[in-house]
């Protein structure tokens, strides 16, 4: 592409790059916070985002009854109803993602810390029953029935094993994370409303151009994303810095062992961290559907890797770094695909990650391991 074209579209690329970057940043917060308290890359966080987009889809189509095919008709052109739908769908996404993150932590991580409890045992027992029954039948109803019957007694056994309190090695957490990531994505692919397709999500918002910035169109959805992202990040920062629970998070991030000795309930701090990270991912999911009008079972994977890249770029464990990293990556990707062609967009993101790690293994703003900034 010629320089002239790049110049002409430069501000367009910049605006959409920042919007994309804000979405990355919101997802990156989940990686960064969990890394802060657990020193673990939560590989499954991408799927937490993904289930959030399905939360939006269900909220829009099932709860508010907006048809997929009304594109261009915008049943709620303005007014309170539109705001209510947007807010409600955001909340739905945050609840779905937050709950998903909490279940994930209880099921796939906590038992590895030697602190498994009945909740995790029940989920694991149910899943065991389910995959065991796949051996024998193809009927989902029968599978579910078998799983339900097995869950009770098996979870008792699991709880017993948990009581032994075995602490797993570090690599085990990663593998468990990868496993749950794949299981979540495939569960949606297999038992979602329709198999493995790209779901169009209904457009509730007419994407009017609000104003022009140096020749770039700034659409209303962009403005909503920017305001929403800033609102969410500010609340998160306030929460972490000003509340008692937030102090707990910072304490655990600095030194989990000392925090525990001083009476911080480390397991509940971790749970809250997952919940917050999940909620942020849910918010990001709403914004993503608002801008791109689609989702898919595997939508989390690439977005997750990129958000993680953003987190690393800014310095993993560092909340403000996530914002910076997200925007840098969003811009790099947009400019890069204008120069090299859109098909290389994802490759560019990976190369950015690789380059950053080579020269600055702890990111632009630095890893805040053991420092006061979470």
């Amino acid at each position, binding site marked *: 592409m010629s320089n002239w074209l790049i110049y002409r579209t430069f501000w367009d690329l910049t605006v959409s790059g920042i919007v994309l970057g804000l979405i990355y940043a919101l997802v990156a917060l989940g990686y960064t916070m969990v890394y802060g308290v657990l020193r*673990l*890359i939560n590989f499954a966080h991408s799927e937490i985002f993904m289930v959030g987009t399905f939360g939006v889809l269900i909220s829009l189509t099932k709860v508010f009854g907006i048809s997929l095919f009304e594109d261009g008709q915008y049943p709620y052109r303005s007014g309170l109803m539109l705001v209510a739908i947007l807010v409600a769908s955001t909340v739905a996404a945050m609840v779905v993602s937050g709950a998903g993150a909490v279940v994930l932590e209880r*099921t*796939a991580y906590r*038992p*590895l810390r030697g602190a*498994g409890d009945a909740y995790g045992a029940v989920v*694991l027992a149910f*899943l*065991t029953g*389910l*995959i065991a029954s*796949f*051996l*024998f*039948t*193809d009927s989902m109803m029968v599978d579910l029935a078998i799983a339900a019957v097995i869950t009770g007694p098996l979870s008792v056994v*699991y709880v017993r*094993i948990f009581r*032994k*309190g*075995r602490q*797993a*090695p*570090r*690599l*085990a*957490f*990663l*593998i*468990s994370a*990868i*496993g*749950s*990531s*794949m*299981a*979540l*994505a*495939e*569960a949606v*692919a*297999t038992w979602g409303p329709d198999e493995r397709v790209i779901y169009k999500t209904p457009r509730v918002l007419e994407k009017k151009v609000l104003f022009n910035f140096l020749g770039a169109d700034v659409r209303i959805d962009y403005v909503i994303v920017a305001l929403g992202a800033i609102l969410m990040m500010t609340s998160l920062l306030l929460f972490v810095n000003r509340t008692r629970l937030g102090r707990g998070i910072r304490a655990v991030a600095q030194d989990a062992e000392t925090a525990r000795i001083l009476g911080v309930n480390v397991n509940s701090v971790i749970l809250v961290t997952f919940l917050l990270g999940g909620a942020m991912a849910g918010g990001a999911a709403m914004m993503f559907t608002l801008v791109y009008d689609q989702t898919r079972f595997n939508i989390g*994977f690439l977005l997750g*890797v990129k958000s*993680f890249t953003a987190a*690393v770029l800014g310095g993993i464990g560092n909340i403000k770094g996530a914002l910076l990293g997200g925007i840098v990556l969003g811009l790099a990707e947009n400019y890069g695909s204008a120069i090299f062609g859109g*098909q*290389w967009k*994802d*490759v560019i993101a*990976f*190369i950015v*990650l*690789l380059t950053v*790690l*080579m020269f600055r*293994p702890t990111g632009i703003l630095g890893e805040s391991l053991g420092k006061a900034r979470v």
Partner: protein
Amino acid sequence: MSLTESFRQRTAPQLRVGSRFRALPKSARWSLGALLIAACYLTPYWPDVPVLGWIVNTPGTSFENVLTDQIMMFILVALGLNVVVGFAGLLDLGYVGFYAVGAYTTAVMTSGQFSWPWIAAMPLSILMAMIAGVVLGTPTLRLRGDYLAIVTLGFGEIIRITANNSDWLGGPRGINKIARPPSFGPFEFSVLNAKPYWYLGFTVILIVIFVLSRLENSRVGRAWSAVREDEDAAELMGVNTFKFKLWAFAIGAAIGGLAGALYASKVGFVNPDNFQLQLSILFLAAVVLGGTGSMYGVIMGGILVAWIPERFRGFSTRRYFVFGVVLVLVMVFRPQGIIPRRTAAAGIAEKGDTNV
């Protein structure tokens, strides 16, 4: 620690096959081993054996093809990935990339751009994969474990996207008419007859097992173990950790490339969709499920991951879900896998802190 001990003692005794075998007199070991190898060579005929046939049969698919296209590949790949993950303790999530490099090299050299004979393309495929391993490993092996995981994952995707976007590599349609191994004597390699592929593949597997056990029980294997268990301490004991990590990467990549090349020449075509990231995760599942670091364990893991979805058809469409859940369950309840590493019961060793 004592809790871990008690857990180990409770589970270990069921699996003493290995030590019982080693306790036998030499002659008995040799004849048992020979018998076992012969039986394995005859695997394509297993479905015809009563009882055994009922167990191994794969409804809906030809057992021979499952054996050569799936089981054989997964055994090789699991052995190769085990060098990286099991021996050296490096989490590689982009292993499918090396598999792809091997497959594509064979494809390009024998059909896509050149028309080399199969026998010449094979070593080049291994070499190319090995080079890819060194190229990826040189800048990345200084990274800490979890960063390495995500960078390798990126590598796997880069390979696939590149293949997808490169006309030279056939783009999304891929490359077909890949050369088959030359037939000799009674062994005719054709679409209709998968058996010779198994004889070839199993021979390759035996060679790989031999080579890897030589390495495992040598200075190299000890260096890998030391790196896996405590990289800083290893370096301070005179182990050139970077060099040995790179070797692990290169050898693992070479085996992955070999598997890919064999796969390509068996099925006759490749396209980028054959090398999705999910495959990397299944490879990892094979290693972890079987027993990270234990060669017989990962072979078993490879067989199970490849065969179960074909044996139990209800599994096949849901295999990724199933193996995702299985990974979690194994990590929670038996991180050392089905057949744990011999000297150690703890599976993957924990890396020490970076500060000494």
